[in-house]
């Protein structure tokens, strides 16, 4: 099987789906001639033409809002938000309209729309380019939120997202675009939304993560293994739908849980996972769940981002403390 970067896997999914279904369109800032600022859409305009791969003006609200109109007309838009940070400019379109149009029209209008958006830190980008805003979107009923952590999943989840009849926010980890690599089948396959993945099996402590933080968790697991602590890493893959059964099984397995995310602590999606564990599997907890997150401060300039984004050390320390705690 070919080894691919996550970025190549994403591009392959886009290419295959545009090939397979001519209703699929790609639109966003600089997605055409340039192929996107990260080259996720490189070559697509040459192959599928300017009608289907469209450079949009610098206006996120109408990029999202017109994609909703395209969906209503019967097309299948895939929007690239240049950065998740700028999806705030389209926030009023994404939640109250895109996520609700099916409901607001009582089923008349389907919205098979995907918004791809890179995010996440440690790649020395300017302000607003890294912020992990996923939890804010999780308060938008009707919107699915997908968070691939591997190249394999990036392709399979993106194909599933584009084919989903409902709108999906597909968040791509900036620092994974070229660094995350793996085997990616060249055929057509989907990975179902709402099914978590066991990234690494273990017995002592569970680390729950998504997107690039899964890799940090896997590295932490390797360090912990050297210390004789066996960590179980659960990659959620999607936040909505949330794989509650998968979470329950992982908690039952170890009784001790660390949740890691790049967003600030307060009201981050980690809180929802703690609450879900509390709801579903409270009595199996041997210790309080630990959240390892960014502090409640803005994503900073690049010179101090290493202090901000949870690193292997903080995950190891949290998991070690948990594993050593008496039950």
């Amino acid at each position, binding site marked *: 099987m070919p080894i691919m970067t996550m970025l190549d896997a994403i591009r392959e999914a886009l290419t295959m789906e545009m090939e397979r279904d001519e209703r699929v369109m790609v639109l966003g800032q600089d997605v055409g001639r340039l192929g996107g600022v990260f080259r996720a859409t490189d070559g697509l305009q040459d192959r599928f033409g300017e009608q289907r791969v469209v450079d949009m003006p610098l206006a996120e609200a109408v990029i999202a*809002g017109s994609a*909703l109109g395209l969906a209503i007309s019967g097309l299948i838009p895939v929007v690239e938000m240049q950065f998740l940070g700028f999806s705030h400019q389209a926030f009023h379109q994404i939640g*109250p*309209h895109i996520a609700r149009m099916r409901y607001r029209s*009582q089923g008349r209008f389907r919205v098979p729309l995907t918004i791809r958006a890179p995010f996440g830190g440690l790649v020395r980008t300017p302000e607003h380019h890294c912020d992990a805003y996923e939890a804010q979107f999780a308060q938008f009923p009707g919107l699915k939120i997908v968070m691939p952590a591997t190249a394999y999943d990036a392709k399979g989840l993106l194909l599933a997202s584009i084919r989903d009849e409902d709108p999906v926010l597909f968040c791509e980890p900036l620092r994974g675009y070229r660094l995350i690599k793996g085997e990616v089948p060249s055929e057509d396959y989907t990975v179902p939304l*709402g099914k978590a993945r066991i990234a690494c099996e273990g017995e002592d402590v569970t680390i729950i993560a998504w997107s690039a933080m899964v890799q940090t968790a896997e590295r932490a697991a390797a360090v912990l293994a050297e210390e004789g602590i066996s960590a179980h890493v659960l990659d959620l893959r999607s936040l*909505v739908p949330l794989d509650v059964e998968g979470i329950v099984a992982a908690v039952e397995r170890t009784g001790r849980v660390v949740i890691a995310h790049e967003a600030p602590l307060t009201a981050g999606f980690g809180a929802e996972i703690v609450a879900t564990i509390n709801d579903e599997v409270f009595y199996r907890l041997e210790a309080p769940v630990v959240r390892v997150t960014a502090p409640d401060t803005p994503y900073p300039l690049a010179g101090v981002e290493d202090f901000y984004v949870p690193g292997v050390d903080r995950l190891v320390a949290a998991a070690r403390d948990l594993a050593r705690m008496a039950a």
Partner: protein
Amino acid sequence: MVQAEAHFPARQDVSAPHCILAPDGTIAAGVTPTLSGSDLADAMELMLLTRMFDDKAMRLQRQGRFGTFSQVRGQEAAVTGSAAALDPSRDWVVPQYRELPALLRQGFPLEHFILYFLGDPRGAEVPQGVRCLPLNIALASQLPHAVGLAWGLRRQDQDGVVLAYFGDGASSEGDAHEAMNLAGILKAPVVFLLSNNGWAISTPRSKQSAATSLAARAPGYGMPGILVDGNDLLAVHQVTAEAVARARAGDGPTLIEAITYRVGPHNTADDPSRYVDPAERDSWLGRDPISRVEQYLTTCGLWSKSIAAAVEERNRETVDGALAAAASRGAPTADLLFDHLYADAPARIRRQRSEFTGQGR
């Protein structure tokens, strides 16, 4: 100041918007209206229908039997004249919330409109085959949808045109700018119908923008801007029909500013006596869009007491029938929180549905 493209009739004098049918119901000699005969009679009947409905619904609301809603009263010509330029079998209406005549002409059931304002989610259903988007409360957010829809039709080689309504208030929103600019770039087949009724709740047009006319925005998007007397059914129809024809021919969007006036309250919760100058309001009552057409039709021999009575009778049946149909639907249930949210609801939602529909409050 509003510059139209060469091949497009220029009607850019802000002080005197384009007008065909004078307030006294006369038209200039030699002018042939684009709306006439049975189409004109239909438009008249539709305006009378929504006027009747506005009155009825306001009475019901005062009795607590109808929800908060906004009448189209006084603005019937702007909405009806523009919608009458569409072919409902291929063209679309994208409403704000004050465009009942346009929705009805597209085939949206009055019963649904009533249900919606009774708070029943089933009223939000846009029936298959009816080419309009849902009522839109979040101002100007409908305009990006309209542009995308128009773009999508064109991409699929359909020759439909989208008529998008918005208010003078909504014109200040960023979404209005982004949508008109994109439409210009794409030459999307969309007509922007700005109903300038002088008010956004209590905010007068003068505080909404320092622009002499809002149609003056059009050149900034590379499209023609047209000012029209919004209380003149014939003029509104004419400029919209021209804009629709341009859009259909692939010549791109148009911004039409229809100058009209909100003679009633913003909605049933509003008290305009706090901010409206009664003299201004009265002067506009004298420019009623319906009586103008009535006089003209009478002159043409197309209107009489007996025709009026028959129309009133039909309209009353329509209103009463729709009210009765809505009433017969039965109380909405908790299932309506969940119906149609997802094509395939995630497990968590399915569980919530069973919890919420198992119990009331």
